[in-house]
């Protein structure tokens, strides 16, 4: 369990990430290693987003972790300007986007994400964004995307 002092547990949108909390804790371990991953069903081969423990297509419960592309393009974007939930007010305004990831033979995948290092008006549909691991500052991590290309 992770203690966070700014909002009570029940109002904290960040998930509990450890092996005692969730069976997909490796997703968060992978983020710490700089990898954005999800599960693929070992039985039917479907790529599942978000990571699952049981396949909704074939009912199998054996999964393998696969890496997702580290860059994508903006499918849509906006900014939260007014009306942020608790814990997000100090971030205002912040950019939100749906990012399109090219999955090769598997078509494409859409991800909902925060976007760092850009203002709303600096971005347009089709622009490139790059995955980054965001350090929540309390031992937890999550993924975001950034408008700044990695070195």
């Amino acid at each position, binding site marked *: 369990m992770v203690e966070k002092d700014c909002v009570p547990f029940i*109002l904290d*949108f*960040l*998930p509990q990430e450890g092996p005692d909390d969730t069976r997909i804790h490796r997703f968060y371990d992978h983020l710490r290693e700089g990898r954005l991953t999800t599960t693929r069903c070992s039985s039917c081969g479907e790529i599942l*987003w*978000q990571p699952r423990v049981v396949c909704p297509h074939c009912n199998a419960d054996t999964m393998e972790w696969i890496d997702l592309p580290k860059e994508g393009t903006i*499918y*849509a*974007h*906006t*900014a*939260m*300007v*007014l*009306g*942020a*939930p*608790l814990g*997000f*007010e100090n*971030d205002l305004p*912040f950019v*939100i*986007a*749906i990012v399109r990831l090219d999955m090769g033979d598997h078509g494409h*995948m*859409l*991800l*909902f*994400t*925060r976007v760092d290092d850009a203002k*709303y*008006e600096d971005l347009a*549909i089709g622009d490139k964004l790059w995955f980054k691991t965001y350090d929540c500052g309390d031992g937890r991590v*999550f993924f*975001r995307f950034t408008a700044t290309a990695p070195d």
Partner: protein
Amino acid sequence: MAMAAVVAAGLTRWGVRKATWKELVQEAGKALFDSVENLDRKDVDALFVGAADPERFVFQAHTAPMVAEQLGLSPRTIMRTEMACASGQMAIKAAAAHVAAGVSEVALVMGVEKMNAAPMAESQTSMACVLDREWDGVQGGSAPPFFAMVAQRHMHEYGTTREQMAMVSQKNHHFSTTNPYAHFQKEFSIERILGSLVVAPPLTLLDCSGITDGAAAVLVTSPERARDFTDQAAYIKGFGQGVQGNNVTNLGDITKWPPLTMAAEEAYRTARIGPEDLDFAELHDCFTISEIIEYEAIGLCPRGEGGKYIEEGQSDMGGKVPCNTRGGLLGTGHPLGATGVGQAVEVLWQFQSKVPEERNVTGAEVALCHNLSGAANAHHITIYGRDA
């Protein structure tokens, strides 16, 4: 033919109310009971309460027995329905199904939400938890940014304009000036709507429905019993729902809402009608862009032409299908659990010509009520007819 009938209604004034949720329930209940001569509250054998999130908004669970307590009811069937912004319509569907199955003879439906109680950031948090908390909420997501991206994509793909979106807001705010129960009672010009505070670009404050307190009640019974209570009921002819999970990205293409088209097709099939038979509609205009996409997805106009539909006045009085004559969510406000019930009240009062003449769709035979919930991936439709 009809599976059930809505025979009586009661509304509170909607707005930022100086009243608790239980007082709103009492007001709506009184209005309903006062409106029906032949109704003894002992005859109400079932109670369905539509409330989205009282656990968060007012820190209260187990609300249905409390509604029974406020209204002096001793129902043998009682439950609350939760489907976020569609909770009220789900309560009507549950009531109609119980009536059609013979489990209930006379059912009362109460939709209620008290949203202006906690500080605003807490209320925003309560609304944001409709999204998948672990994947969408965690990114700071809530309804306005999602629908803002829907608007951006619709503009990008079909050339829909901000002016066309503002026309939805102008129309619905105009209608709400004819509705004394509505939260908002003012007309807004296109310029004023476009120039209001940016909430999530391209959406401004007047593209968004309000944070509102309110309650709405209807009485549901069998088509056979309907005549005991009224000469003109609103007969429930069909239902349809469609759902595609809850995650923000599930729709694939956020400008098309396949679960809404599925819901509409199912509703038309069960009611044995088509979109060309609709005389008016209550559409879920949580944001202006929503109403534009809904015209398209329920078959009122071709894909991508929703902007043109509002611009041509087809959803206004005198148009093909007047939409949101009570003022919609934009004009009356959106007390989540009450909204779907408030739509049914409008349908009944339209059929009974109890609404002001300027918004009365005279001679209307068929009406559609629609709600969406979550990131537009769950849709819910009820079709009403003037005749059983």
